């Protein structure tokens, strides 16, 4: 078993923080399917559609029949550790600062022999359970885990590199007024977050959830994502100790362009949902990027809560969905901008949530507790995309099947003028 990770001691102020470095990023286009699956927590390999042979490493033509139809399919994770070595030094800066590093060869039950990272709880020459994770470069890698869960497995240095676990980390939740704030704060507390900072806008305006938040034990900080100065001020205050930023500030109103008749709410939606994310990124991003290798409580993840309308417009909330598309697009830009530092951007897509402004929609709706649970699970797994609730998963699948068909289904008209 792994020793439980203790809360990191106070930093020695005279010691240089470890610089952010990354494992190699380059992959062939064919290999990126592994990353795409790992980005949502799945282990997938290519499987020939003609002869059903599993492929490893990824390639453009089947190793058995030369077919080029090699779709990525979820891979059975059972296998046996055959051989291993522990790397003691490396020309690569990232590994140099993290040796010893255990790697080895696994014979999978499905066939392929695969080179993998090995979790310290795996016994030599024993059965393993294969998992896929994103590394600090944001690329999919394979890890041999023990076949049964072991205590504190996610506390191992290897897993801290591959995940964004809130344990012992300091989290900023940007909007105390959001209906999901208490559930989110509670889930973070239960997951072992060291400090939960929570942004509170307009303290001159009372709100009922404040007492519940106080009871959970959060630190209220003045923050309004529509006010650049307030974002900059808070970043000045806690930007150097924000390890995970969860942007739960969101402005929602129903209706598309014609239903509203003015751009007022649309401006609010863009100001909170799009510009708010940009203001946070400009203020907090650079500091977080500098601290991605900073011991056990390093800066590790940036989380956006997005509505599934970001993928394909949901006309009942048409104008809001447009702001979600803008936010989604910006999140992709942030992924690129944070990539060099290894700071992960995790998008959590959900359908309508159980909240005031989606009250007129029929179920199913995502409960605040479910959303919070999925956020924590996503961080603990270190993924980039989380699909929370049935509607988000359904829209995702239909989007992947045919975006135009989905668009047409979502934009049916009514009868008569």
């Amino acid at each position, binding site marked *: 078993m792994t020793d439980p990770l203790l809360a990191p001691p106070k930093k020695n102020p005279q010691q240089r923080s470890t610089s952010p470095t990354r494992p190699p990023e380059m992959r062939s286009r064919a290999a990126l399917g592994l990353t795409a699956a790992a980005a949502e927590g799945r282990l997938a390999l290519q499987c020939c559609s003609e002869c059903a042979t599993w492929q490893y490493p990824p390639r453009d033509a089947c190793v058995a029949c030369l077919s080029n139809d090699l779709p990525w399919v979820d891979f059975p994770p059972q296998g046996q550790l055959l051989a291993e070595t522990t790397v003691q030094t490396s020309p690569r800066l990232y590994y140099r600062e993290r040796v010893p590093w255990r790697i080895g060869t696994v014979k999978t039950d499905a066939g392929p022999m695969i080179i993998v990272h090995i979790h310290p709880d795996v016994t030599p020459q024993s059965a393993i359970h294969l998992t896929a994770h994103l590394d600090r470069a944001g690329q999919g890698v394979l890890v041999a885990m023990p076949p049964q869960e072991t205590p504190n497995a996610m506390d191992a240095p290897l897993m801290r590199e591959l995940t964004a676990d809130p344990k012992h980390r300091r989290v900023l939740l940007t909007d105390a007024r959001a209906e999901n704030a208490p559930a989110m704060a509670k889930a973070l507390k239960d997951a072992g977050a060291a400090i939960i900072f929570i942004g509170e806008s307009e303290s001159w*305006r009372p709100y009922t959830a404040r007492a519940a938040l106080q009871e959970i034990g959060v630190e209220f900080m003045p923050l309004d994502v529509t006010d650049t100065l307030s974002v900059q001020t808070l970043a000045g205050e806690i930007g150097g100790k924000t390890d995970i930023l969860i942007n739960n500030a969101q402005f929602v*109103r129903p209706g598309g362009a014609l239903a509203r008749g003015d751009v007022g709410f649309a401006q609010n939606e863009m100001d909170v949902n799009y510009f708010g994310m940009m203001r946070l990124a400009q203020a907090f991003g650079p500091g977080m990027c500098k601290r991605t290798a900073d011991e056990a409580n390093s800066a590790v993840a940036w989380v956006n809560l997005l509505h599934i309308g970001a993928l394909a417009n949901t006309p009942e909330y048409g104008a809001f969905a447009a702001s979600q598309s803008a936010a989604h697009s910006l999140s992709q830009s942030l992924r690129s901008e944070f990539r060099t530092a290894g700071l992960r951007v995790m998008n959590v897509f959900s359908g309508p949530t159980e909240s005031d402004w989606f009250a007129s929609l029929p179920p199913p709706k995502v409960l605040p507790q479910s959303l919070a649970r999925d956020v924590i699970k996503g961080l603990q797994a270190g993924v980039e995309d989380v699909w929370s609730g049935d509607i988000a998963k359904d829209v995702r699948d239909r989007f992947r099947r045919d975006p135009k068909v989905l668009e047409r289904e979502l934009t049916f008209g009514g009868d008569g003028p």
Partner: protein
Amino acid sequence: MTTLTDLAASLASGTIRVVDLTHTLDPDFPVIILPPEFGQCARFRMEEVSAYDHRGPAWKWHNISMSEHTGTHFDAPSHWVSGRDVPFGSVDAISPKNFVGPVVVIDCVAQSNANEDYEMVIDDITAWEKQHGTIPNGSWIMMRTDWSKRQGAAYLNMREDGPHSPGPAPEAIKFLIDERDILGFGTETVGTDSGQGSHAVPPYPAHYYLHGAGKFGLQCLSGLDQLPATGAILIAAPLKIKDGTGSPLRVLAMVDNT
């Protein structure tokens, strides 16, 4: 021109003092809160365009945005449905002579301290007149409550049944309009009406009667404690916004210091 020459001399010597009655335009200053399905009053916001840097090497400037009714602001007659047809009812059309005038301060501090929902009544006005004489026509009337000294949540004083702050009783406003032909009415609270004014008949009586009669409003004023009960001159010129229903502004008063 003797009067103006005298004025200039008095300003220079300090026998006439200029008092600022304006709150700072601050992103975190409270604004009126309406039910969330209605459009809201935009807060004051400021985005830096450049600050002597690569975005503009020798200069610093900001883009600002806000509602016509953010911060210390002026209400024109066209702000209210009752004043929609008042001629020259928008800020750009109001005659500039209305922007400078005498100001009368009715002290309701003790009453408001005792009752946060205090409504100024006709008796408060007649009591004032007993001491200082009849309110001259064309005056600004200021309801002083010292509410501007409140900070944070105590300012709007919002509870589940809405905000609680003092304001004028409907009949007091009618009296000032019909019997004293005032120029306008000003308060230290977020609006010219009391916090619970939406429950009066008509709702928001100060807004309804003032603007219907072509009178003006000033709200979110500060420093009314620096004004004498009578004898000061108020300068309150809104921005010249095309068809504007109001405007943030700098409200100043000239006060005799002798």
